[in-house]
């Protein structure tokens, strides 16, 4: 369902898409990047040196001399099918490595920026 909002003279249409957020240890960054590159996502954002607590304890970011142990957060937006492929590729990983992923509904204005052919 598309919603419309009107601000003055411009009219923006919201298009529903899925958003995935992934948090993994820094050393898994190449793996997740490859997975996203191979999927149909049109782009993604990476936050380095993320801090937080997980099942295995606390992980402080902002380390001067260690890029391996700090956490990395990815987020990407795409259609449901693409997000499903990413989830399939990550689920086995989390059986062995620490990390989490969240999938949620979100909206974008410029749909053509986010949806490639699925």
């Amino acid at each position, binding site marked *: 369902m598309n919603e419309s909002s009107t601000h003055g003279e411009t009219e923006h249409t919201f298009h529903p898409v899925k958003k995935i957020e992934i948090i993994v240890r820094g050393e898994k960054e190449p793996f997740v990047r490859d997975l996203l590159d191979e999927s149909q996502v049109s782009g993604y954002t990476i936050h380095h040196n993320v801090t937080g607590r997980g099942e295995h304890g606390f992980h402080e970011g902002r*380390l*001067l001399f260690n890029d391996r142990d700090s956490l990395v957060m990815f987020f990407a937006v795409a259609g449901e099918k693409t997000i499903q492929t990413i989830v399939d590729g990550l689920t086995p990983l989390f059986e062995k490595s620490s990390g989490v992923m969240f999938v949620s509904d979100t909206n974008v204005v410029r749909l053509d920026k986010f949806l490639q052919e699925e």
Partner: protein
Amino acid sequence: MPIDRSVVRARIENAAEYVGPLWPLKTFNAANPLGGFEDQPFDRAVQQAGQLFGGRGYPGPMAFRQAWANGDIDAEVLTRRLAAHGITERPEVLLDRMEADERAENTAPADRPLDRVMTKWLAAFLDQGQSAWPMPNRAEGFYTAWRTVAPYDRDIPGVEGPSDLPDTLVDAFGAVLGSYPEARWEAIFVHHLVALPGWTGFIKWRARRANTEWQAAHPITLADYLAVRLTLADRMGASIAPDRTDELPANGTNQPALPRIWLQAWEETYRTRLLDDLRQAQPSETESERPDAQLVFCIDTRSEVIRRHVEQQGDYETHGYAGFFGVPMQHQPYGTQERVKSCPPIVDPKHRIVERPAEQYWSQADRYDWWTRLEEAGTALVKALKDNVAAAFGFVEGSGGLFGGAMAARTLVPSGLFRLGRAIERWLPGPEAFCEPTVDRAPAADGEGGDGLPVGLSHEAKVLYAEAAFRLMGWTTFAPIVVFAGHGSQTPNNPYKASLDCGACAGNPGGPNARVLAAICNEDAVRDELRERGIDIPEDTVFLAGQHNTTTDGIRLFVDDNDPPVSSKGIGQLRQDLRAAQAGAAAERVETMNATVDAGRTDAATQETQRRAADWAETRPEWGLAGNAAFIVGPRALTREVDLGGRCFLHSYNWRTDKDGTALENIMTGPLVVGEWINTQYYFSTVDNAAYGSGSKVTQNVVGKLGVVQGNGGDLMSGLPLQSLMADDEHVYHRPLRLTAIIQAPVDRVDTIMQRHANLAHLFDHEWVRLVVMDPKQDNAFRHYQPGGSWSAHAAAGEEEQAASAVAQA
């Protein structure tokens, strides 16, 4: 059954956790071969690894017998620990029993045809410029390239043409895995990856660096490896899946406990003696006067020896800091397009530093270029003539005398060669003499190469690295001269040179990093900003860079003598004192190397080290970090009066100036972790050299310019050679003890840091490293960390640890 590519990839990623990355020889990095098991307690980890790699996890009876005979294992400690496990026999009886157990366990390695075929193709594909006739189609990736030529391999049955093999990688997995449930895939992958941990470790390293030259030209991933191997296993009738009994033991405490108890007793003995020495040395808390010079060395265990000797020469203060000097850089030496990572394995480079000739020395650079080109042309000509079938015989006939003479000189008079090298250096100075690093940002050069690293450093980055250095070391005074001394080894004809260079610089010499930090600290703008942040560097302080030659103990200062930044008298005195320190340190080290030197000559020891530095047949130019056993974090005052025998990493730290613990946090999560990697590499290379080391140098061969194999093929050898660890066939030189970290800081500060770093706490909780804190708020009392998070008093530490261990065993 269709195979989901992304699921296969994730399963491979998981399986690859069991294999440690293996760096190519040129950037040999220390790493824990059991790094993938660090999330488990040490004892369980070595048993699982033993099951997978067939390697031993504890020292053998020979090492224990030697330690026992030398008094390195305290009888009382051993007896107490054995008694806690209900063992009351005499130690000699137990040594005999361990020896008998070992003889019973020894089995000859099985000949596995699948491994032979696999290693043949891996060596061909991964070749990095050694072979004269490379494998075709490598640009298409390993699986595709192999599929094209596999029909010509008579060791592979039933393949007439490429069409007999699956079209693509995904098809290959589908063909073999189709009959197994997904739940079994990971075990299958592990089984095949650990069969050749050297090659798979190298692929793991290379595949993660997609932008490196060879990986870009000839891509290979562990998926390629597995696709080829599973296809081969299928064709050759080898097992696809491991026997169920081969799979990882869920919980393994079924091994005999003797070696474990002996190791703990040995470690406790070393630890107790070291702590006693530190306590007796009684650190002085008084602030020192301004010394004549401060010299900063790498935390490397070899620095401890030279530091002691430098301090004896005059009013010199020495400090320890990670040998990349906190600058995470990639270095591009002069005259080459090659870029080398020059920071620790756990740090990614953030800047590219290029060596460029200083304007006033362009003519010197031209002269150097001319001679270098001539030499390169000569080398290329000789290679072409040697490799050319028609020319080879004539070439040998014609040039035999010349090459024979050179060979005789290298073999018979290596000391003369060392002097000749120095004479040539004086006549034709190397790039260090006329180049300067691009410390300033040079955006125009960023695009060259395309790996995205900015050339040079921004002002903010410069301030950050300078501040980090002085905060981590806890400096409050600055001498008129401050020297940052990186280190490197000198050894010809040695594939393992990188293992003797600076581990904090990814197996490269640390001089370039030292030059960068010195240049940063000499900038007025940087000093102004540091002053605002409370670090006040006096106007007259000059920062110099240097490099400690760990083979000869000579220290070279990178100073332009035509325009010295400090008085030439001051430099002259420093150089003279450094030469005296070299003589003392070399004499101390030569004693440990089974060398016979003329005791009547004062420079005999230095000459012996120089011979080793030039001798192309020398298998042990120096001991490297052999002997490493402890990592001490604190001011030099703690250790200055103690001879640590070159066995301790020393990181300077001042708990008083680090109120919020940030400096200590960075030391514990950075250098200490690298220290653990180095320590475990020496440990495992010593306890099982066949599984985790690389065997004797005498029978090693370099393959593909990337690694070594024993004899003419097989798996890549991954760890250190025997000559770096053993004094001779029967005597261990590196005493395999797990690292003891000793930190002078309040216990609650260390506790807070561990609570914020789960991965760090794992190392201590799982007994990969032992942690002792010297708490200055409790009269410098020692507090021992116990797995699980509690602290015990010094006197009770041994008993408490052993009680916990006995419970775990029960």
